[in-house]
């Protein structure tokens, strides 16, 4: 395994065109300069790292891929293309037969660098934090989708991202760009074994072209020993629309820092989340919705539950620029606290500079509702059965808004099973 140093960065950039080499060099400087984030910074509050990035190494050869499918691939019988990335390397690619460019970053850097230049390594600024800097400095592969203007692809693309080597760090990059008036859907699944101690830093960058529609579904199902610090940045053009659903289930610490820039007039974003923390997990969401254009709409809707000793964090920021008149922006975060030892933090923020806007936020946390429980029990359902139905219903409100209903169904059955197991173990 390679340590994270200047040689490793050079090796990762072996096939870089000049423009990417330049971005990588800047990022490496930041990586050297920046400290590990500290929970004294607001954006890292409640998160305490017991490692430094350099504790993990880069692999030359990816480990063995996970054989067991957790139902996601089966829920996608008809896909437009697929890719498997293990330990940050593309190990198999089915480019599909659509008019879009879909492939591994490394292959496309060799075959078609011109199409990548406007998009790749542009989403998350390298100076944002040490993880972001490391991503661009040491990342070497990923998935790229570029949809030409006017092309609508109904079938989803599937990107399977796995960690398989103990002690390894990987930096998968997912770059998705939709041309004017195009349409695409991408499903991303994260997976690792529970026994594995690994660090994954995925970056997602979404360039949503004018009047195009991009759907992204992320299923985070890391093993309990995996730490994931990810970033998602989306820039949405005029009348463009981005629809993101994230299901957060696994990981020791799983963090997603998301920023959507509604740059174009009439653009909109719909961001849904469902997360379920267990044992000593931390699930950490830092979302920013930045309204820049006129007449833009956004809705953030996240529902989470915590049991065991787990912790969830949601901080949501709606920022409305002075020019962004006629904005509609909402954020909702509801949390179920299912065990005494579990906790949730929920901090909605608004920063509104325009005067002609509609904006709202709601945040709740607490146990299951006693009145609802009584009502269901009065229909003959015993207590545990009533609780299961309430937990199911709680998440259903979010999962029903997911971009790919078939994926939402799989997530629903995992959540139902996870809660049922906790009931049987007597931990809720």
């Amino acid at each position, binding site marked *: 395994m390679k340590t994270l140093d200047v040689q490793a960065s050079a090796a990762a950039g072996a096939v870089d065109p000049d423009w990417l080499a330049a971005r990588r060099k800047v990022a490496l400087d930041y990586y050297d300069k920046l400290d590990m984030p500290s929970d004294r910074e607001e954006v890292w509050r409640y998160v305490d790292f017991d490692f430094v990035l350099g504790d993990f190494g880069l692999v030359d050869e990816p480990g063995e891929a996970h054989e067991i499918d957790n139902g996601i691939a089966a829920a996608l019988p008809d896909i437009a293309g697929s890719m498997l990335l293990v330990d940050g390397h593309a190990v198999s690619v089915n480019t599909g037969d659509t008019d879009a460019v879909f492939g591994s970053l490394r292959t496309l850097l060799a075959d078609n660098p011109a199409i990548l230049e406007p998009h790749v390594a542009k989403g998350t600024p390298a100076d944002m934090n040490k993880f972001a800097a490391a991503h661009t400095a040491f990342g070497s592969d990923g998935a790229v989708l570029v949809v030409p203007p006017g092309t609508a692809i109904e079938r989803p693309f599937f990107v399977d991202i796995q960690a398989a080597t103990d002690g390894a760090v990987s930096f998968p990059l997912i770059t998705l760009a939709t041309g004017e008036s195009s349409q695409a859907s991408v499903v991303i699944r994260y997976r690792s074994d529970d026994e594995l101690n690994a660090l994954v830093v995925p970056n997602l960058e979404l360039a949503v072209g004018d009047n195009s529609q991009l759907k992204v579904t992320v299923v985070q199902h890391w093993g309990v020993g995996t730490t994931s610090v990810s970033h998602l940045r989306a820039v949405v053009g005029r009348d463009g629309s981005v629809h993101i659903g994230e299901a957060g289930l696994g990981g020791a610490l799983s963090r997603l820092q998301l920023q959507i820039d509604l740059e174009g007039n009439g653009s909109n974003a719909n961001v849904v989340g469902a997360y379920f923390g267990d044992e000593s997990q931390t699930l950490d969401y830092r979302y920013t919705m930045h309204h820049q254009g006129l007449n833009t709409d956004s809705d953030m809707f996240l529902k989470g539950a915590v049991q065991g000793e787990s912790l969830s964090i949601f901080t949501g920021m709606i920022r409305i620029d002075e020019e962004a008149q006629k904005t509609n922006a909402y954020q909702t975060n509801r949390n179920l606290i299912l065990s005494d030892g579990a906790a949730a933090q929920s901090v909605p923020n608004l920063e509104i500079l325009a005067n002609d806007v509609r904006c709202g936020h709601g945040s709740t946390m607490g146990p299951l509702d006693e009145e609802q429980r009584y*009502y269901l029990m009065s*229909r*003959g359902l015993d*207590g545990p059965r009533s609780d299961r*139905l309430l937990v199911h219903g709680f998440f259903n*409100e979010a999962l029903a808004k997911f971009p790919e209903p078939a994926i939402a169904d799989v997530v629903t059955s995992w959540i139902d099973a996870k809660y049922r197991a906790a009931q049987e173990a007597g931990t809720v």
Partner: protein
Amino acid sequence: MSVALQVSGVRARYGDLEILKGVDIEVPFGEVHVLMGPNGSGKSTLCHVLMGKDEYESSGSALVDGTEVMGLAVDERARAGLFEAFQYPVEVAGVSLNDLLREMGEVRQDPAYAERVEAAADTLDMHRFRERSVNGGLSGGEKKRSEMFQMAVASPKVAILDEIDSGLDIDAVREVAHLVEELRSDDLGVLIITHYSRILRYMNPDKIHVMVNGEVVRTGGPEIAAELEASGYVDLVGNEASIPKPEITPFDV
């Protein structure tokens, strides 16, 4: 005929507030009874205490077809044959009526259940609500209809319908009254709770019980309803010295 519901000496308090002061009511199978009384007299509390809601401290006896239900869990009472249609049914967001119906079926293991669901949904025109969340965004009348629907599929031995007529226009009240009359059977005892007497114009109750201040102060035949219509509630029980005047709310007739 044997007794569907036999309530004897039921008392209940909420914290320091004594709400029910020893209630006796008997509803035989095949009969429809009405429990009337002004707002705040304890009618809903009686329902909840019979159903087993744990926020009240209660004592006394309630037999459902001879089975003592006081002390049982809420769901056990339901499965013993008791059904309460709520005055204020709570919304259960994210849980569809179909989800609830499926679970109700699973706990009952009754081969006739599925057929009963379809038949009741036809009769009550409930199909369009089945994929929607339980009581979510329903009007007052629709919620009452949904409660009647769940009662029909639960097929209880005792049905207590709390203010099934409140918030309804007169046509809907008539419809509800007719539905209750249709449900009347030798396997069921019904207790309708109301503080209006108007629903009584459209049905033929076997008995009327009047509750004031947590006690049943009068039980009689349908003629009580006529008295109430004619002279209001105060005259009916005005001679009862135990009733403090300020707490008496006249019926809206």
